[in-house]
């Protein structure tokens, strides 16, 4: 069980998270939706401590941390990060390494696997995301969709217990969105535990076990996709969802 409890986070005077509680069972997919600036990215980045909460607690993969505004010991931060992988909106592949190198990097540098072992595992992951033939390409030689799939392989390479996605398709041309969502759907069906921030409502409805609606730094709604998307009575949620009604539901 992954649990975030009572998370608070401010940037200077701006309170971005105002007491957020999340629980997620292993093998489940949690999708976070909500208007821009509501704190979705910030919440997601708390899972792997790219943002350290000011208050609250996290328990994940046998690690329990609580926050009180003091600096965390580096070893706790690293321990938690080893349990998680992250896929960024802008891919953030390492441009100085090939696709294969990107996927091997964490295994070699962090997990201290041998090069041969890492290469074998990396190739398997590239096959899985459909990019076996691009192993030796550098990121700039790949399309956005291909880069993002390499990024997914890289995030999985260190065998995390939780994968985090921050709007993984928002930077993509519309015709490339499908190939990335397909990979994520496959991971979901294989029982990968994931937290996904997305604006793709149709995808969210399909893939989520639990859907969370965030607004103004708090969770305003939480439930199955059907409950949140079709049976909400919260006016803010309805207003937010209204914007997607006319969307071509991909």
């Amino acid at each position, binding site marked *: 069980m992954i649990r975030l409890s009572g998370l608070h986070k401010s940037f200077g005077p701006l309170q971005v998270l105002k007491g957020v509680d999340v629980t997620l069972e292993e093998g489940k997919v949690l999708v976070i939706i909500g208007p821009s600036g509501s704190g979705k990215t910030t919440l997601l980045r708390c899972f792997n401590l790219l943002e350290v909460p000011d208050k609250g607690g996290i328990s994940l993969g046998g690690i329990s941390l609580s926050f009180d505004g003091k600096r965390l010991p580096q070893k706790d931060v690293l321990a938690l*990060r080893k349990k998680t992988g992250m896929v960024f909106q802008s891919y953030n592949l390492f441009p*100085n390494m090939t696709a294969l190198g990107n996927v091997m990097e964490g295994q070699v540098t962090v997990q201290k696997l041998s090069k041969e072992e890492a290469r074998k595992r990396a190739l398997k992951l590239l096959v899985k995301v459909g990019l076996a033939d691009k192993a030796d390409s550098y990121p700039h030689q790949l399309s956005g969709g291909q880069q993002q799939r390499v990024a997914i392989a890289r995030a999985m390479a260190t065998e995390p217990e939780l994968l985090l996605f921050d709007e993984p398709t928002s930077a993509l041309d519309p015709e490339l969105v499908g190939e990335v969502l397909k990979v994520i759907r496959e991971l979901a069906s294989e029982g990968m535990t994931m937290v996904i921030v997305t604006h793709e409502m149709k995808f969210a409805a399909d893939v989520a076990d639990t859907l969370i609606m965030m607004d103004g730094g708090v969770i305003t709604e939480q439930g199955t996709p059907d409950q949140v998307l079709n049976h909400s009575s919260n006016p803010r949620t309805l207003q937010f969802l209204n914007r997607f009604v006319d969307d071509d539901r991909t």
Partner: protein
Amino acid sequence: MDDRKIQIVIDSLLPLLKAGVAFTIPLTLVSFALGLLLAVATALVRLSSWKVPVLIARFYVWIIRGTPLLVQLFIIFYGLPSVGITLEPFTAAVIGFTLSVGAYGSEIVRAAILSIHKGQWEAAYSVGMTRIQALRRIILPQAARVSVPPLTNSFISLVKDTSLAATITYVEMFRTAQQIAAVTYEPLLVYSEAAVFYLVFCTVLTVLQDYLEKRLSRYSAG
């Protein structure tokens, strides 16, 4: 040009080349290598959150950039003996030039590190790297590429600056040219000849820069 002048040019070729290869180039290479290490170390300290070392690093860069290199060399070679530190000309020159490359280079390296998008740090952290691992594996290799042109500039400046070592009795290429000029009474010829040698050395470096840039940019478009 009469035969005598041609003879002088030919006679000074070998001594100048020898001085260049045996003294100017080693002084340049040693100073640049040490200076580069100092530059990276200083840049990393300045980007750290250790208060006192940051102040020391800034103080060092401030002093070196704010005073003439020639004055620094004189202080090291002629000044330090009065506090009991007497240095060989070569050692004094290496210290002076290393400090100089370290100070100017640290700003280049610092800017190069800062130019790397913060998403690269975050991606490195997200796979579980420490700050040191992220620097070594992800950030510095990318920063190295950005710094090649400005660092080559420093390198080329250094080749020419080593002529200042003549003033602290180090017999490098320029000092050799002075000696030849003094006995032949042909300063225009001999100094021009020395200038051509400097030009050749610097041109080789420019070619090397092109090569390095190409190698390091394998991975980027354009």
